[in-house]
């Protein structure tokens, strides 16, 4: 699939006095094994190779220059980045507040991002359309390579494009819609007002073609007007076209365009003269016998030539106008073919495919035509406007290509232009007469085309991130009414306190660690251990919250936070999938995700901020080969990764116990251990939660704190006991209006309930037979002194009793 591409400068270098390197205006990309070349100019929008082959980076070429500083000079380019929605950090995607359109991109307003790239990573040009904030992004596009920019993104928020930026982008789109509109307006005066210009253009073209071939046009109900015109002879029609052409020629934009062309023509290199278009240059490929379609087309072009012989004279002055349309066709092809498959097929061979595609599109195109004609609602008009705009943008991009055509034999022009003029209107409704004309050539060609131009069928996209959720409740949850209910709510483990008491030291340590890594833009690992319920995860969350606030206040550089939990994975290798998905939103298999992550963390990325990764329940990521742990701790050691890994597990000596040397060595010695809470700490925690709420007796709080500290030091347990005690308290006091305080007695009951073994009551309540069974076991144990006995032996004892 990937063929080698050679990059070469086009035109003379302009020496930049300040920067001591040579700048160029244009670059040509030659694909090996293919006679075509791709020309890329400064100011064009380009695709740049990225991590993801499906979605390459998008950028605007600002400058092309040769970097002479290094021993081997390299082609460099300066770009202004655009960012795709999928490249926006997942955690910030919600800031958009709506679903992004499939082809929407954002102006990347982030100066810290490296804009200097290797010119050889450029894949090819792409079409980017700037939209005013109130414009709707068209959805049903024939050309899927067109991208739309509407908002800018500066790592913090999405904002509409500033007016001057918009104007700048708009200016780049040569042949702006305003110009087209004027054409439209003028032609409307000439022809019937109900038709759109494009339609008219189609009809014009068709009429010329069909007449030149003197072939009866097939009837079609939708375009009676076109048919009528077809029946006319060619001579009355010619003025008609001339008029329309002249209108476009006279459009306010055209002079400007020619001026620019003139300016550009001097930098055109002679190499460019070998135009890829096989039709226009007598290349050997044209004479190849198998290209029957081409020959066939040429034959029909020949008689066309004869007919329009006298037209050349009149057309001559209008050549630029015609040429733009020629090129628009060419451009339309390049992003899809040259860009994506990085190989360019001579346009002649491509045409049949185009036609076939067109045929497929025809019914809907006609529907569109009908609808747009019948009710010119705002939407449809907007749509056509966009389509027109899109077309014209190609003109804009291809403007510098156009001067090459001036050297071409004029005789070819009418033919190709008429052909291609039609193509340029492809997003617009087409009449059947044109299609059936093309059908003839396409059917002949169909045998050889499939192999050369495999048709690309875009896959229907399924929603990438379906967001499931539990349905919301009809009735709002009641708010707590009494003091005890309020207390219970605050005592719930899920209630997040404003601050974490008793973990100040640990908080500070972790905070300092992560902050220093962020400031140094390096990576590192930290291992946090402690028994369950000692606030490990809560503290880390608190640290991250603090750092995020600091990042908002620009105290620390912004970072991306990702959390994975070993318990929430089905299998250790799934951790890659989770990280990748949270990092980029991509979905991949575990193996593929591991590769992508390794690539991401080991190579210099274009726009990277530090990533903070929290791995909870680390011990569950243990595998036989320990490759998951190894990778997790290996990535931060790469300088480019800028990855901070915080790991949490229960056991203090986990690295020594289960990890291989090479894994624990990478984990490093930054360890932290969370001690179980002492009774005074638990008391403080309870106190902070129950601040200003008189629900517990002081003694009661002290009692439960001491009890839990003696048992486990688990804060969750402590909170649960208190919560249960409020239940008991509420339960025991019968009068609902006056709930008393929770006393030691209540807590004692709760503690008993939770910690007392239920065996004794269970035995007490079992049946006589079950009790004697136990007695017999005991007797047998006393007799034999062994802890195990067979049923038979037991039965003997049982019967003795």
């Amino acid at each position: 699939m990937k063929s080698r591409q050679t990059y070469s400068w086009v035109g003379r270098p302009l020496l930049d006095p300040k920067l001591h390197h040579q700048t160029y205006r244009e670059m040509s990309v030659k694909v090996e094994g293919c006679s075509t070349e791709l020309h890329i100019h400064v100011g064009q929008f380009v695709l740049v190779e990225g991590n993801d082959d499906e979605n390459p980076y998008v950028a605007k070429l600002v400058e092309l220059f040769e970097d002479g500083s290094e021993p081997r000079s390299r082609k460099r380019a300066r770009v202004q980045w655009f960012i795709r929605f999928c490249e926006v950090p997942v955690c910030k995607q919600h800031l958009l507040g709506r679903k992004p359109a499939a082809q929407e991109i954002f102006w990347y307003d982030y100066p810290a991002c490296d804009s200097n790239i290797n010119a050889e990573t450029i894949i090819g040009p792409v079409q980017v359309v700037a939209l005013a904030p109130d414009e709707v992004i068209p959805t049903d596009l024939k050309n899927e390579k067109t991208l739309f920019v509407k908002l800018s993104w500066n790592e913090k928020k999405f904002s509409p494009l500033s007016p001057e930026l918009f104007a700048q982008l708009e200016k780049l789109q040569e042949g702006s819609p305003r110009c087209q509109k004027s054409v439209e307006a003028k032609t409307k005066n000439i022809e019937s007002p109900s038709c759109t210009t494009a339609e008219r253009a189609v009809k014009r073209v068709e009429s010329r073609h069909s007449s030149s071939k003197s072939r009866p046009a097939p009837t079609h109900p939708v375009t009676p007007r076109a048919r009528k015109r077809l029946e006319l002879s060619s001579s009355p029609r010619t003025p008609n076209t001339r008029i329309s052409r002249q209108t476009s020629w006279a459009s306010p934009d055209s002079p400007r365009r020619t001026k620019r062309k003139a300016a550009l023509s001097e930098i055109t290199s002679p190499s460019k003269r070998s135009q890829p278009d096989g039709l226009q240059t007598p290349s050997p490929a044209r004479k190849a016998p198998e290209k029957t379609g081409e020959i066939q087309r040429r034959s029909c072009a020949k008689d066309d030539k004869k007919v329009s012989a006298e037209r050349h004279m009149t057309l001559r002055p209008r050549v630029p106008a015609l040429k733009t349309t020629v090129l628009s066709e060419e451009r339309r092809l390049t992003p899809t073919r040259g860009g994506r498959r990085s190989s360019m097929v001579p346009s002649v061979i491509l045409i049949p495919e185009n036609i076939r595609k067109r045929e497929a599109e025809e019914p809907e195109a006609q529907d569109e035509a009908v609808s747009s004609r019948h009710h010119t609602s705002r939407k449809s008009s907007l749509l056509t406007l966009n389509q027109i705009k899109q077309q014209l943008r190609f003109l804009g991009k291809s403007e510098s290509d156009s001067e090459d055509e001036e050297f071409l034999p004029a005789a070819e022009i009418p033919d190709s232009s008429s052909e291609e003029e039609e193509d340029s209107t492809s997003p617009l409704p087409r009449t059947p007469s044109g299609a059936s004309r093309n059908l003839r050539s396409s059917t002949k060609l169909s045998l050889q085309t499939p192999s050369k131009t495999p048709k690309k069928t875009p896959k229907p996209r399924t929603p990438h991130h379906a967001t499931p959720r539990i349905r919301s409740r009809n009735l709002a949850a009641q708010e707590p009414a009494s003091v005890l209910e309020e207390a219970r709510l605050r005592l719930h483990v899920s209630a997040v306190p404003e601050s974490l008491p008793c973990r100040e030291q640990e908080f500070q340590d972790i905070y300092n660690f992560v902050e220093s890594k962020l400031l140094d833009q390096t990576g590192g690992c930290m291992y946090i251990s402690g028994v369950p319920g000692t606030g490990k995860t809560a503290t880390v969350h608190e640290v991250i919250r603090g750092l995020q606030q600091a990042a908002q206040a620009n105290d620390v550089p912004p970072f991306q936070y990702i959390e994975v939990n070993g318990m929430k994975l089905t299998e250790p290798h799934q951790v890659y999938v989770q990280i990748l998905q949270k990092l980029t939103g991509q979905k991949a298999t575990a193996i593929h995700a591991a590769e992508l992550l390794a690539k991401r963390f080991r190579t210099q990325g274009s726009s990277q901020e530090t990533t903070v990764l929290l791995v909870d329940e680390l011990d569950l990521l243990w595998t036989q080969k320990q490759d998951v742990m190894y990778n997790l701790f290996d990535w931060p050691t790469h300088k480019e990764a800028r990855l901070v890994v915080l790991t949490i597990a229960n056991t203090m000596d986990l690295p020594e116990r289960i990890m291989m040397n090479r894994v624990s060595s990478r984990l490093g010695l930054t360890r932290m251990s969370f001690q179980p809470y002492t009774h005074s700490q638990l008391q403080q925690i309870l106190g902070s939660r129950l601040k200003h709420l008189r629900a517990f007796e002081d003694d009661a709080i002290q009692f439960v704190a001491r009890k839990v500290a003696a048992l486990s030091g688990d804060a969750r347990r402590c909170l649960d006991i208190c919560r249960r005690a409020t239940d008991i308290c509420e339960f025991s006091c019968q009068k609902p209006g006056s709930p008393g305080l929770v006393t030691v007695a209540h807590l004692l009951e709760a503690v008993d309930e939770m910690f007392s073994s239920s065996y004794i009551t269970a035995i007490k309540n079992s049946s006589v037979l079950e009790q004697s069974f136990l007695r017999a076991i005991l007797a047998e144990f006393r007799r034999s002194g062994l802890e195990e006995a067979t049923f038979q032996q037991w039965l003997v004892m049982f019967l003795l009793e």
Partner: protein
Amino acid sequence: MTQRHFQRRRLHSKSWCLFVGFQFVEMSSRKLKSNNLKHSECLSQVQRILRERFCHQSLHSNLFGVQVQYKHLIELLKRTAIYGESNSVLIIGPRGSGKTMLINHALKELMEVEEVSENVLQVHLNGLLQINDNIALKEITRQLNLENVVGDKVFGSFAENLSFLLEALKKGDRTSSCPVIFILDEFDLFAHHKNQTLLYNLFDISQSAQTPVAVVGLTCRLDILELLEKRVKSRFSHRQIHLMNSFGFPQYLKIFKEQLSLPAEFPDKLFAEKWNENVQCLSEDRSVREVLQKHFNVSKNLRSLHMLLMLALNRVTSSHPFMTAADLMEANQLCSMDSKANIVHGLSVLEICLIIAMKHLNDIYEEEPFNFQMVYNEFQKFVQRKAHSVYNFEKPVVMKAFEHLQQLELIRPMERTSVNAQREYQLMKLLLDNTQIMNALQKYPNCPTDVRQWATSSLSWL
């Protein structure tokens, strides 16, 4: 000839008498027909009602002695449903102690509250059905109707399912999303799942500010908390509701009465009254009390009481419309029947002899395993010395009998049968107890006396 004639006449007269009798019966039955029909209808009604009560856990029955636990549970569920507070609780109790009945009662009462019924989602899982976390996740997704939420993308791999569900539950918060009540039957089996992923995640949700959930586990293992991993255990709220069958015999009698008596809304009031009177009488009867006491001593499980009553109920017919003490005694016997001893009753004399030989071998060698050859030798000794009635069978015939015993699973090979091992020398173990053999022998019809003697005194033969 005359005698024969006479005989025929007697036969004739007999048949006439029969005919007359039949006519009489028919007449009387016609009179009673409507009454009788009603009677049988009533009985079928009774059987239907009571069987339903015994077999299905009907929600209409009252709760016996679990009011405190019930109140605890219902309060907890209400707080989840109304305040959106997440909770977790375990209901622990032996089999048949009414755990499922308790939660079903609580849910029924909860659903009767109008504001709650629309707001609560229920997910019922059973450790016997959802044998691993993947199946459980799919079941949860299905029961929460989440598969409707996202068109085509449901039920991918296990990992996808998990993250999908966690994401779904994470989206909610205390006040706005619908509370979900998870009921995990056979909770202890979930603890055997790999890593206890499901339990960890459920408890983690219940301990974090996500969709409010109530996790209710039902189990009969008292040591359930030891089965949980420490981090899972830490996330569990340690609320336990114990159901212990803590009633005594008087309550047991009361339950017995209540289970048998007909409801007031029974169509035939007269019959119901009579039936209930009979039940009252039964409960005061000494032999019935004895039966019940014995049953109570063996097991306090209410299901076993149901079984007993069911068997007794099956004996009730239109000719025998009311349950008697004898019925109950019969049912008790059926209940406590030993199936192995019953199998022994059906064996041939040769097979009985083999079993006795094995018993002697067991006595001599103290539960050491034996093989066919040893048994055959023992049998030969008996036949040659003392047997009068037992024919000396050939070895293959004895072998066949031996194999039959193995098929009946009265004896079991010690290790797996391999193809090339000699069957005569394979080590076997007897699965019957001495007392079982003796009891069976006593009941064995037409048991030869010498065989019986041999069974009782083994060592004298040597």
